């Protein structure tokens, strides 16, 4: 059972669209280390977890990842608002646009659709917890990669995220 709170975990108010950046951010939604995989990983691993405390943290982190998923898709949505056809063509966004227009669809930056092979649920506590730690470690790497993409997107930080 889940219930919804009608607010983002942290507010997102993007002023200027940037379709180039949106295509990079989208991978954090439905890519190999994205929030969709993260939430499904923790939520799926709960059933074979032998300790109540661990099932508790998997439940609550899995839930929090859904809140992250919503923030990431909001960023992509706001980065692709009010784009002109010229901006779509010039930013390389046309390939996504032809299939989804500006709808949000989970895929990796390279165009690979989300699939559950992005995570494991092995039915073994030690195996699953190691997978969780490995997944968590990708976050640090992702943050560096996003910062690099950000710096080259010709937009000042203050204009994009407030």
């Amino acid at each position, binding site marked *: 059972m889940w*219930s*919804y*709170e*009608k*607010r*983002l*975990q*942290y*507010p*997102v*108010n*993007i002023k200027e669209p940037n379709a180039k950046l949106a295509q990079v951010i989208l991978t954090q939604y439905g890519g190999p280390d994205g929030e969709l995989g993260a939430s499904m990983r923790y939520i799926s691993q709960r059933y074979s977890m032998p300790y109540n*405390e*661990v099932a*508790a*943290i998997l439940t*609550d*982190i899995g839930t*929090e990842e859904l809140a992250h998923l*919503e923030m990431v*898709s*909001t960023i992509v*949505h*706001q980065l692709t608002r009010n784009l002109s056809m010229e901006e779509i063509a010039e930013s390389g966004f046309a390939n996504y646009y032809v299939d989804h227009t500006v709808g949000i669809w989970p895929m990796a930056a390279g165009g690979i659709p989300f699939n559950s092979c992005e995570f494991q649920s092995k039915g073994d506590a030690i195996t699953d917890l190691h997978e969780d730690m490995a997944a968590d470690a990708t976050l640090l790497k992702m943050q560096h990669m996003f910062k690099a993409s950000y710096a080259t997107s010709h937009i000042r930080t203050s204009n994009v995220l*407030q």
Partner: protein
Amino acid sequence: MNNRMKSEREQLFHDIGVISFVVTEMNEYLDTHPTDKEAMEYLNHYVRMQNQAMREYAMKYGPLRISDADGCNQNEWKWATQPWPWEGGC
């Protein structure tokens, strides 16, 4: 964040975000430290603040969760008519 003065609504919404962040983090801490009494008291304090702020927001502007919908103006189902979170602002 710009320097413009926050409206009363924006301030309350901001406070809900801050309080809820504490609740989430304490919830996750307690999952693996379930006998930490001090942490439980800390969580309880923030849960009460969260409920109070959520009730106040629902009463004045519309509900952020269905469990507060009974505290709202009954002429309109604001859950559906008010802006959704991804549109920015409140």
